């Protein structure tokens, strides 16, 4: 046992000596560098593994962060879309309001009661032929002739006015035409399309003067089947064509005039 204790004491003495003398032994630093360099070879797989784990952790964390940011951006984008839609709608409304020119009905002759009437706005007020005329937002007819201070409006009930329209529920295209006797008809609708009473009719995209989407009226009933595959329907106009005192004319947008 004495031998082991002797060795132990020598080792302890050596240990204490090295610990005490380490600040002055510069050789230890060089030796430390050598040991580090030698051990870097067997330690290499551990270093690679550590870096892989660290990179994976960082990638995973970044991925989670990015996913969170993506969700936040999606949410923000949805809100911005809603805000943008509201702003666009308000812009459209403001533009339409600015383009709507109020006019008073000045003449409606009994012999052409269901064909035309005159309004007190003319060329000097920016009225041109073909502009749509509305009452309470529903199409009444189109400007037929223009003079300096007045214009004539061709009514929906006139057999001379044909307006391309769309059935909003089925997206079927047809033509609205009057019978000259107070009725308004929807023609050229293919048979068996499931058109029902109450379906809404609005203007279709036909030209720059009459924008699409303006309400015209609703389906009242089917009147005839032509036999060539098309049906005709009676429609109830949204405007009160029998009580026209004042109307609005949708003027040409500035961009289109240019």
């Amino acid at each position, binding site marked *: *046992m004495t*031998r*082991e*204790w002797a*060795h*132990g004491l020598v*080792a*302890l003495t*050596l*240990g*204490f000596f*090295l*610990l005490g003398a*380490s600040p002055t032994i510069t050789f*230890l*630093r060089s*030796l*430390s560098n050598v*040991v*580090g360099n030698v*051990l870097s070879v*067997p*330690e290499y*797989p*551990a*270093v690679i*593994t*550590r870096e892989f*784990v660290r990179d994976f952790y960082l990638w995973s964390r970044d991925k989670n962060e990015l996913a969170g940011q993506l969700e936040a951006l999606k949410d923000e984008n949805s809100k911005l879309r809603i805000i943008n839609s509201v702003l666009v709608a308000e812009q459209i409304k403001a533009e339409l309001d600015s383009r709507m020119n109020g006019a008073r009905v000045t003449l409606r002759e009994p012999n052409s009661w269901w064909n035309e009437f005159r309004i007190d706005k003319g060329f000097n007020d920016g009225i041109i032929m073909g502009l749509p005329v509305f009452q309470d937002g529903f199409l009444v007819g189109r400007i037929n002739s223009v003079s300096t201070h007045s214009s004539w409006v061709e009514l929906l009930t006139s057999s001379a006015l044909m307006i391309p329209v769309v059935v909003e529920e089925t997206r079927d295209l047809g033509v609205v035409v009057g019978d000259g006797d107070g009725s308004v008809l929807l023609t050229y609708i293919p048979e068996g399309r499931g058109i029902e009473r109450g379906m809404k009719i609005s203007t279709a995209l036909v030209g720059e003067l009459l924008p699409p989407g303006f309400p015209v009226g609703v389906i009242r009933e089917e009147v005839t089947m032509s036999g060539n595959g098309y049906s005709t329907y009676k429609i109830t106009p949204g405007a009160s064509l029998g009580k026209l005192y004042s109307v609005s004319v949708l003027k040409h947008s500035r961009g289109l005039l240019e």
Partner: protein
Amino acid sequence: MTGIFWLVQDLLTVLMSGAVRMPEFFLLSLVYRLFTGGRDVYVPVIWTAFFGGLLWDLRWVGIPFFALCYVVVVMMVMAAWNTLPSSGRTVFIIFLLFWAAQLLPAVLSVLVLERKTGNVGWTLFGVQQGCAVPVSLLSAFFYFKHEKNRNA
């Protein structure tokens, strides 16, 4: 064999970026050798502890700290082991010796080398001891398995 444990401890420390201290696999292997090798291995174990500790110091610490610690621990365990009667070498005592052997360098390193890190040093010490308990249990298990095979 103890060299492999030294390397395992070193590689695990590299893997943990040196931030978390690993259980003293090397020291536990020396203690295991003391318990199982008889008196013939005492002197080699003392010098293995010294040079293994020195190598560890050169790799990780910079000053010859663990060389001294390991020799102290080996001598203390040696003394305790020789005063312990055969009947007293129970599972619990063996586990306690393994655990206590690695406890001393761990405590001293926190007190001496990591005293400026404050609570962080003690937190890492806690983590190390959390890992050291199962390793000590495993060492005790292998000791009894070795004894069983020897007596068979």
